[in-house]
């Protein structure tokens, strides 16, 4: 069986106008995957969503909205595992605290809950040069 082996590495300015570019790339990957027996349009929405959420967090919380900074995202598929990495150069935060849903009438705080619900694995770790949010979905 031929499996997909894809690697996409994206750097864009730290601006929300690029959210749709990244989200669309996620959608397109879902639609071109060779082996996927699930609901492709659901996967397309889900990848669009987790990429949008992770990138919006990097822009707003880690890079603090500074439009001259850069956001770096990697999407790869190896052996039927889809891996997303979003790098940030902020101070980091306590990731576990936000995994559970908050109050239904909260205006904020649904991003990490959504990523956690959709993906099979999610972690947030320090690297030499900042932090990386890593999410994995088994296809």
């Amino acid at each position, binding site marked *: 069986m031929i499996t997909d082996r894809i690697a996409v590495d994206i750097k864009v300015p730290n601006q929300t106008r690029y*959210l*749709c570019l990244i989200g669309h790339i996620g959608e397109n990957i879902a639609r071109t995957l060779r082996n996927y027996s699930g609901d492709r349009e659901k996967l397309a929405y889900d990848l669009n969503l987790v990429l949008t959420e992770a990138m919006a967090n990097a822009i*707003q919380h880690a890079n603090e909205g500074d439009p001259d900074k850069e956001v770096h995202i990697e999407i790869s598929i190896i052996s039927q595992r889809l891996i997303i990495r979003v790098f940030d150069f902020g101070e980091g935060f306590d990731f576990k605290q936000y995994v559970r849903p908050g109050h*239904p*009438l*909260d205006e904020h705080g649904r*991003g990490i809950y959504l990523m956690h619900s959709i993906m099979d694995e999610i972690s947030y770790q320090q690297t030499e040069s900042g932090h990386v949010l890593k999410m994995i979905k088994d296809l």
Partner: protein
Amino acid sequence: MNLQIEDKGAAVLMAVQEERLDAHNSGELKNHMLKLFEEGKNNLVVDLQAVRFVDSSGLGALVSGFKNASSRNGNLKLSGLQLQVKSMFELTRLHRVFEIYTDSDEALASFQQ
């Protein structure tokens, strides 16, 4: 942001004419709602028929509008949710917060009763 706003008497209809409601444009939606509240228009229908994608900040803007409307004894109702957008409301349990109608006519009619 492309937004069509029309005063229908019993409520104001806001039709979001964007494919995406996300962190890039949800702030603008919030501001437009605030402006209406300031004008004393506390009953809103937000029609999402054209919207194919909503993220958590889009949901947050709608929650903010809902809370503002409620605190002024008004209401914010939704209409026209596409299937996948509806799933987002279910996943976040917001389908229990909002009154959701199939189309804007139904949502507007519910204000006239």
